[in-house]
């Protein structure tokens, strides 16, 4: 079989099972069994698949995932995150597009506390949308910042998708996490500028309103009481990774432990909170890591069948600038992103793309971060976008689909601009990890 026939076979089968509604994890194992029967033989192939699943699940690079998820879940379920939202709202004072900016800034903060785009968007959406609507905000000013906040959760560490990408592509997970900080902040600033600009240009989009003016003394007390501890927690987790004091797994464990201890000081620690956090963690981790276990066999079969090497040799023989190849890969990610969620795209494309990127001589961390932004774009593009579904759940049904799509366009465009900036100035990605090395 030619390599392109093999690749076609892999993806046609996978997409068929996915589209008839087989859950992604089980679609992977179904396709694995079919393909390993073809390329290896039924029983030895199946034994190999079981060993692959075991081997991928006991890899130390993915052990941070459940721990980071637990950290986010505890902070959400203890109500500390909502309290922080409240405090930051008081701190902001009078600003154009005040609530949009609030969503943006807190979204960025929560992105640094949580690895889950959906949790981030859902939390902000349900907390802020009623207030925004009551204040007469235009739907564009509501949906955009909340989608943006969700997207940032993937890029700003900690991020489950980042860890998966590092583990599947064999890129340093620590470097990837650290490399996400600057691009994440850059995108936050781009969103901030955009929404302030909209609010100034057309105040009717975000009508100003009177706010209770608390004293500066009160604001600082609230800041120290509710925001500072969380900022310290984030700083500790990232600092441990950055300075090489602890592995990502150890940092995640320290972060999770910190997030469990923190609510004790606010009297928010109880059995129900822990139970809900653990159940939430189990649900998300099991769902994500089962896909990882199942897809490990898939990417190894791609290599085993000769498809990966075939693709690489052809790409290398192509007479096109290598950046065109990179852009082509990003377009594939964007295209898949219209109907598949980010994690599965990582599992499908990264094993095929990363060897090519490495052979072309590009920085893998740089490619990883740009791929992550493209993945987070896919999260908001119709028809299938986890964040779109989340948004639909929190906005009133009177809002038309057309209005939603219009707001999505802004988010997509701004992130596309970010991708172009990072392609032109790769140092924005590679600078922090390079500091780490010295």
């Amino acid at each position, binding site marked *: 079989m030619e390599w392109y026939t093999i690749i076609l076979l892999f993806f046609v089968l996978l997409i068929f099972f996915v589209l008839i509604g087989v859950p992604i994890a089980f679609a992977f194992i179904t396709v694995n069994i079919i393909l390993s029967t073809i390329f*290896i*033989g039924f*029983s*030895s*192939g199946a*034994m*190999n698949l079981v*060993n*692959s699943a*075991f*081997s*991928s699940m006991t890899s*130390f*690079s993915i052990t941070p995932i459940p721990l980071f998820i637990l950290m986010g879940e505890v902070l959400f379920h203890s109500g500390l995150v909502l309290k922080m939202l409240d405090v930051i709202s008081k701190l902001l004072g009078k600003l154009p597009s005040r609530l949009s900016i609030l969503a943006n800034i807190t979204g960025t903060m929560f992105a640094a506390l949580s690895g889950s785009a959906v949790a981030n968007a859902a939390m902000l959406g349900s907390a802020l949308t009623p207030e925004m609507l009551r204040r007469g905000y235009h739907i564009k000013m509501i949906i955009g910042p909340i989608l943006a906040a969700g997207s940032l959760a993937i890029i700003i560490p900690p991020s489950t998708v980042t860890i998966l990408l590092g583990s599947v592509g*064999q890129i*340093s997970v*620590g*470097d990837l996490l650290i490399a996400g900080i600057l691009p994440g902040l850059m995108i936050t600033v781009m969103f901030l500028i955009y929404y302030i600009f909209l609010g100034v240009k057309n105040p009717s989009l975000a009508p100003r309103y009177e706010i209770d003016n608390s004293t500066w003394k009160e604001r600082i007390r609230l800041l120290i009481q509710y925001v500072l501890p969380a900022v310290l927690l984030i700083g500790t987790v990232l600092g441990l990774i950055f300075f*090489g*004091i602890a*592995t990502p797994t150890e940092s995640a464990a320290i972060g999770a432990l910190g997030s469990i201890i923190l609510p004790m000081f606010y009297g928010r620690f109880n059995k129900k909170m822990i139970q809900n956090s653990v159940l939430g963690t189990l649900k998300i981790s099991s769902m994500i890591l089962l896909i990882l276990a199942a897809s*490990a066999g898939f*990417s*190894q079969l791609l*290599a*085993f069948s*000769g498809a*990966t*090497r075939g693709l690489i040799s052809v790409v290398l023989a192509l007479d096109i600038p290598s950046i065109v190849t990179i852009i082509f890969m990003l377009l594939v990610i964007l295209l898949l992103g219209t109907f598949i969620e980010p994690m599965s795209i990582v599992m499908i494309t990264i*094993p095929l793309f990363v*060897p090519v990127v490495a052979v072309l001589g590009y920085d893998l961390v740089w490619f990883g971060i740009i791929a992550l932004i493209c993945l987070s774009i896919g999260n908001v593009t119709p028809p299938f976008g986890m964040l779109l579904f989340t948004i639909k759940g929190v906005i009133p049904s009177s809002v038309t689909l057309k209005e939603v799509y219009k707001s999505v366009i802004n988010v997509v465009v701004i992130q596309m601009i970010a991708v172009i900036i990072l392609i032109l100035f790769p140092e924005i990605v590679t600078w922090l990890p390079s500091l*780490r*090395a010295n």
Partner: protein
Amino acid sequence: GGNEDEANGSENSNDGNENVAAENANNENENENENANEPANDGETYTLSVVLSLDEDNPQMLSFPIFTEIVEAESDGRIQIDYVGGPEAIPPFTQGEAVQNGTVDMGWVAGSYYADVVPEVLGLSFSQLEYEEEVERGSIEYISRFHEEKMNTKAIGRAGKGNFALHVGKDIEVNSTADFEGLDIRGTANYVPVIEAVGANAIALEAGEIYSSLERGLIDGYAWTNYALPELGAQEITGSQIMPYFNEADQMILANLDVWNDLPEDLQEIITNAAIDAYLESRDMVEEILAEERIEMEEAGVQYVELEDADRFEELVEENSWAWLAERVDNIEEMEEYFKQ
């Protein structure tokens, strides 16, 4: 004792061959086995799929292309070698099982990766003999028995020459055995007895994790072969390679036992001899690579440090390696006769 066991070894290998013959007689046409000593050309072509435990261009895999060339030439094309991939195709730690269950027909696999199934394979790591001597004594045949019994594979031969060395990071100075005390050193099963003997802690990490772990100061050093360092990116992060070198590389050439038994005897012989020839040819190249690499590494600032108490280090290595193995195999005296001087 050595002579007696040599005799045992060859006896056993004869047994092995008889079994092969018997099985072939049952399974396939009998003509082939009646003339077992003549090249029994059944006209059939055998394609053998191969997985490697390291990337194809890693110098530790040097013997593979040589082996392929010899086998395909000597067999007049009756054996075709089909390279299916490296660690990306089958996870390194499951490659032993992949050969066992027939996912691939052959593998260039590090013994320590499957030593939990066949701990005897570590004898090859702790061996004090040159390969020629091992071949003469039948040491590989002896070790193969355990592979056949416990994991349905034939151990055909060593895959490559190499000694091990301990390496430490840039900010760490080691001049004597005592300086290792308390250091965290990366090392899989075959290194553990030595790392523990010098008072350091052994941490099992995959080869791919060595660079980032040392860079972050999570480990103070790592055990690896004394060459193939640039493949780890080691010149950027290594302070010094510590000598003397110790023990032997544990890369093995394995074949699935059923596949092996299905091969006509003349082809088995071609493969066995090709494995030996490929080893010997690559062994000379390893010396060159080592010398060239040393120049490259020294230019990058890596030091080559000889321990002040080198004798003591070598003593510790010998004692601890075999004592450690003795706790994990049932037949340590027999093993020592095959691998000790």
